[in-house]
């Protein structure tokens, strides 16, 4: 704000006919360029299209995205993403493991929000085998899952700022995320790949005093997120960079199969927690955040608003959590679900995360089909960033918030 004021004062000073102003006018006249007037002359200035290889190792590719940009000057005419650098074929690995043994692999999919992957897989296997999860475990899942969503959104907000050149907010967001990782470390001992939500419940009960600490953390975040909003989203330069770039309409978004925050930023209120409720979400009071402009700025704001809704859910879940067992009875490590298929999905931090599992009546799954939301969202990038400036295309990659462990699987 001060900078803007200062520059205005400077302008006023210069506008008076000071010696400096006179010199500047003279300089301008001497430098005046001869601008082309006819279309023919403009055409003669065109340069040929340039093909640039972007990635796979570059800070703004968020992992290992390689894309071939066809540029006309500064404007991107075509983007061809080339993915598969992190492909490990987890779907094949799953066919050689028992149901319980595959849980740690799901952590390595979307490693920024690993718990939500555990949850989606466990939920589907529970559907397949007809296991009923105890109430306390469901509440712990909701608390951990929402804290994980907050951590993932904080991380993505930080990196979105870096994309636009704002390095400072990143440190604040990472600092808050660190506090969530400490909470997770106390619950399951891990900081990134948790393997915490297992088939039938959760692996361990939360330690004594943990729920109080989690509650005091969300109370703290509730206050500080307002400051962070001012720091990043309210920033004049950040807004200038983000508003009206990478715009997508609802019709295009549905056609290209976007889910999660990018879809909701175009005005489509599709959230799995509400549309196909699982766990104890029907008892929670929260809003599905929707924005209508569908540009990069809306995709940033929507994540900040979702953090606030997640805080509401955590508060309610901690208030309502009952005592009781944390693991369903009779779930052995040699789980053999009946022959059949099941589809289960959850709302991950990036969108609709689904598993389709087929059982042939043996301890190992016949087929595990994983749908990672990042895969569907990244697909829309060429259509979304077409005919924008190359710097705005980088922002669009950032606000889509893809995680390449999940794209390549």
């Amino acid at each position, binding site marked *: 704000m001060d900078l803007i004021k200062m520059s205005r004062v400077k302008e006023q000073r210069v506008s008076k006919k000071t010696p400096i102003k006179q010199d500047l006018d003279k300089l301008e006249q001497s430098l005046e360029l001869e601008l082309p007037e006819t279309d023919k002359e403009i055409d003669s200035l065109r340069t040929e299209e340039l093909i640039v290889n972007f990635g796979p190792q570059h800070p703004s590719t968020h992992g290992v995205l390689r894309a071939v940009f066809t540029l006309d000057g500064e404007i991107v005419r075509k983007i061809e993403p080339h*993915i*598969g650098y992190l*492909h490990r*074929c987890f*779907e*094949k690995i799953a066919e*050689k*493991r*028992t149901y319980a*043994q595959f849980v740690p692999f799901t952590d390595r999919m979307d490693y920024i929000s690993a718990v939500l992957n555990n949850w989606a897989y466990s939920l589907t296997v529970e*559907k*397949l085998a007809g296991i009923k999860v105890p109430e306390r475990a469901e509440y712990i899942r909701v608390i951990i899952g929402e804290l994980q969503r907050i951590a993932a959104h904080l991380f993505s907000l930080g990196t979105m700022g870096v994309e636009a050149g704002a390095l400072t907010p990143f440190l604040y967001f990472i600092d808050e995320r660190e506090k969530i990782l400490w909470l997770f470390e106390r619950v399951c001992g891990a900081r990134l790949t948790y393997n915490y939500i297992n088939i039938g419940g959760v692996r361990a009960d939360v330690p004594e005093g943990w729920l109080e600490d989690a509650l005091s953390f969300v109370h703290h975040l509730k206050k500080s997120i307002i400051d962070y909003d001012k720091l990043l989203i309210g920033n004049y330069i950040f807004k200038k960079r983000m508003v009206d770039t990478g715009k997508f309409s609802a019709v295009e978004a*549905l*056609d*290209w*199969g976007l*889910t999660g925050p990018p*879809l909701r930023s175009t005005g*489509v209120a*599709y959230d799995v927690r*509400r*549309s*196909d409720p699982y766990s104890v979400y029907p008892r929670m009071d929260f809003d599905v955040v929707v924005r209508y402009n569908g540009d990069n700025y809306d995709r940033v704001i929507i994540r900040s608003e979702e953090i606030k809704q997640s805080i509401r859910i955590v508060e309610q879940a901690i208030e309502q959590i009952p005592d009781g067992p944390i693991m369903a009875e009779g779930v052995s*490590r*040699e789980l053999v679900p009946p022959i*059949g*298929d*099941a*589809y289960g999905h959850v709302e991950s931090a990036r969108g*609709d995360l*689904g598993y*389709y599992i*087929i059982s042939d009546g043996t*301890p*190992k799954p*016949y*087929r595990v*089909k994983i*749908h990672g939301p990042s*895969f*569907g969202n990244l*697909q*829309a990038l060429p*259509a979304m960033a077409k005919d924008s400036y190359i710097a705005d295309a980088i922002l669009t990659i950032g606000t889509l918030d893809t995680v390449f462990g999940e794209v*390549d699987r």
Partner: protein
Amino acid sequence: MSGEHILDTDGHDNGDIGGVKIVKEDGIGYSITVNREDLLTAAAGCKEAGFDLLIFVGGVDMPDTIKLVYRMVSTKKVNKLGMIIKTEVPKSDPVIDSVTSIWSSANWHERETYDLLGVKFKGHPNLTRIFMPDDWVGHPLRKDYKDDRMIPFEGFTTNGSDKNE
């Protein structure tokens, strides 16, 4: 097309899309099973009935056939109903119509199914491998897939020891 009214009922008899009965299965919700010749008609019927968001296309290597699964969601209604189309292609002739003309998002999902299972999608704009390198031989998710670099692996036993040792 009478697919609209399934959005309001919760029974087992839920109308039809393009003459195919909609069933409600326990694990997966609403689904229809069609022949491969009828896939495009069924997909167009689903889109007309309000299923405007294609979530994924997946394939399964069954003993004689390759089963294809199309999951879609209707965002038009408040309850955001989901639906699965199931179809099968024989392994001897794994060809099926592409649904990219109906949902653009089918593009990468069909490329993935081609790459890992070898199903050819007729009318796809760019049917190339997506995860594996372009010169890769074979389709890794087939049950009979083998290559020289593969280590024979029977999987772990449930008590944690490795069968291969």
